C-alpha cells in the first residue's frame, strides 16, 4: 500500500455547504484515508492509496458530487 496526498482544484464551489457534499462523498470511497476541502481556495486535499484509487478516480468522485475538479502540481 502506497499512500500519497493528491491536490485537486475546483472552480465550482459556490457556497460553503459544497464542502460537505464533496467531503462526504470522497470519505465514502474505499482507499481514501483523509479528505480536506477548503472552500476559500477551492483546494481539495486527498490522502489516498494509489493502488486502489487513481487520480482519475478522484476527479470522477468529485464530479459525482456535482463539481468539476483538476489535479494540480501543488
Amino acid at each position: 500500500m502506497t499512500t500519497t496526498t493528491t491536490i485537486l482544484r475546483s472552480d465550482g464551489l459556490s457556497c460553503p455547504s459544497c464542502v460537505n457534499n464533496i467531503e462526504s462523498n470522497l470519505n465514502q470511497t474505499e482507499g481514501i484515508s483523509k479528505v480536506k476541502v477548503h472552500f476559500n481556495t477551492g483546494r481539495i486535499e486527498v490522502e489516498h492509496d494509489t493502488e486502489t484509487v487513481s487520480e482519475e478516480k478522484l476527479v470522477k468522485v468529485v464530479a459525482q458530487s456535482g463539481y468539476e475538479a483538476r489535479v494540480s502540481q501543488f
Partner: protein
Amino acid sequence: MKTLQKLFGNASTRKKVLLFVSGLLVTAGWAANFFWASSRLFDAFMLLATLTAGFEIARRAWQGLRNRHTNIELLVTIAATGGLAIEVYWEAAAVTFLFLLGGWLEARTMSKTRDTLKELINMAPETAILVDGEKRTEIPAREVDEGMQVLVKPGAKIPVDGIVDSGGTTVDESAITGEPIPAEKQAGSEVYAGTINKNGRIYVRATKSGADTTLARIIRRVEEAQEEKAPAQRFIERFARWYTPGIVGLSIVSYLFTWDLELALTLLVISCPGALVISTPISVITGIGNAAKKGILIKGGEYLENAGKVTAIALDKTGTLTAGKPNVTEIIHFSKAADLAGVNPKEEFQEIHTVSLPDRNNESLPLEGEELLYWASVAESTSEHPLAEAIIAETGQSGRIPEPDRFESYTGQGIEAVLGEDHIFVGKTEFLKQQGISINDGIEKEIATLTKKGRTAVLVARNNELLGAIGIADQMRPEAPKMISRLRKNGIEHIAMLTGDARDTAEAIAEEVGIREVHAGILPEDKNDIILEMQKQGHQVAMIGDGINDAPALASADIGIAMGAAGTDVAIETADIALMSDKLMNIPEALRLSLKTLGNIRQNVVIALVTVAALLTGVFTGSVHMAGGMLVHELSVLAVILNGMRIRWV
C-alpha cells in the same frame, strides 16, 4: 445516448444545460400565460422546469443522503416537491431555477476571487529544457533535480529556482516580489521559478524544483492564509450551524400551528445561511489575494483584523529603514588643477573636493577620485570586511582590479598592501598617522563632517602620500521618510526606531527619516522589552524587521511585519505579514488594506443579517412566498460576493 452520457458526466456542462433548459421552460410558461392566457399550459411548463432544474438538486440531495448527511439541496428538494404537491407550480419552478442560477453565478464570481492564486499557479512553467553536454531535452519542470543545468531562452519563464551559470539577462520578478522593474542577472545571480526571462539566454543550475520552489511556497502560504478562518468567520459558522436546523424546526412548528404548508415550505427555502457564511470568507480571500498581488503576504484573516487596529509601530533600522548593505557615499580627493596650471603641487595649494556619490546619478568620477578608489580596491581585494565589499563594488563598475603581491591587515585599524612598486595604506586616520603619513587639517575637517553625518571614513595613501578618503554608509532607503509620514497621516503617532547600531549613526538616519524616538545600541532582547513596554501603555504594536535578530520582537508584537521575505523562511515563519520585496510603501499599504478588509467584512455581515431578518419578517407577515424568498436569498448572496470583490480594487 453516448453524447448525452458524456454531456451529463461533466458536472459543469450538465449544470449549464439544465439551467438553460429550465430557464427556457420558465420563459415558455410565462409566454403561454401571456399570449393564450392558458393556465394549464403555464402549469405544465412550470412543472417541466421544476423537474429539469430539480433533477440536479435532487441528485445531490440523494448523494448526500446515501452518505448519511443532510444538505441544503435536500431542503430545496423537499420545498419543491411540496410545492408541486400543493400545486403551486410557478413557485416550485422559481425555487429550483433560482437555486441553480444562483449557484452558477456564485461559482463564477467566487472563481474570480480565486483568480490571483490561479495567476500565481499558472506562472510556473510545465516544462524545462535540460542541458546535458550538447544534448537538449525537454522534461517536466518538477522532474528537474538539484544540480541539473537548464537553458532558459529569452521571453521564456524560468522553470526552477537556481543560480545562473552563464549568460546575462534581465528578469521580470514581479510574480515573486511584486517589484515591476526587471532585475539584472549575470553568472552567480539567483533566479526564481515563475519569473520571466526578458532578453538574454541564460544557463541555470537548478537548486529547487516543483513544490519546493519559492513560488510554490508562496502559493502555499497564500492558500494557508486564505484558508485560515478569521475570528468573525468562526463566529458566523457557529451561528450558521444552529441557524439551518433552527429554521427547519421553525418550519415544522409553524406548520403544526397554522396547517399552512406553503408557509412551512417558504421557511425551508430561506433556511440556507448562504449570505452569512460567505460574508467573511469572501472579504478575507479577496483582501489577502489583492495584498499578495502587491507583494504583501498576510498570513491569515486574524492578522487582517489585528493589523486594522495598530496604534504604535517599532522599526528596525539596518535592513529595514536602510538597505542593510554599506555603500560608498562620498569621496574626498585632492584636485590636481594646480598641476595643470604649471604650479608646483605643494600640499597647501591642493584643493580638497568632496564628491557625494548619490547626487551624481552615475556620472563618472573625476580622474583623481577613480585613482583613489582603484588603489583602495587593490589593497582591499583580498579582504572580506563589509567595508571592503562596498569599496570594491564601487570600483568594480570601472574595470578589473589586480590582487596585491603582499598584504597585511591590522584588525580594526586598516590594511597595508604592496603591488609592484606601489605601497598602499588604507584605514582609519590614526592608523595612517602611525604609518608616518601626514594628514592636513583641511581633510581632517572634512572627515569630521562625514562622521557627524553617520558615515564611516576610510583614508587611502600611496607611497607615503595621502590620496584622500572614502565615506561609507548603510544608506537610508529613499522612500523611508515618505513611508513614515504616510504612517503618521494614517493616525499612527507613536513611531520608534530600534537598532543595535551606534547612537551617532542611528540618530543621523532617524533625523533623515523623521523618527523622534530612537533606541540605539540595544540587543535583540531589549527590542522585545521595548515592544512589551509599548503594549503595557495600551498600544496595539506592529514591529517591522528583517530577520533573525528581530525575531523575538516580531513574535511578541501584535503584528510582526518581515521585510523582503522572498527566499528566507525565518522571516516568514515568525512574522504575521511578510513583504516579498523591500518596497517600504507596502507597510502602510498592508495596514490600509487590512483596515479596508475589516470594514468590508462588517458591511457583509450587516447585509446578511438584515436580509435574514427581513426574510423572516416577510414570511410571517405573508408578503414573501417561495419564489420571492429564494430570489431575495440568492440576491443577498450575490450582493455579499460583489461587495467583497470591491476589495480587489482598493
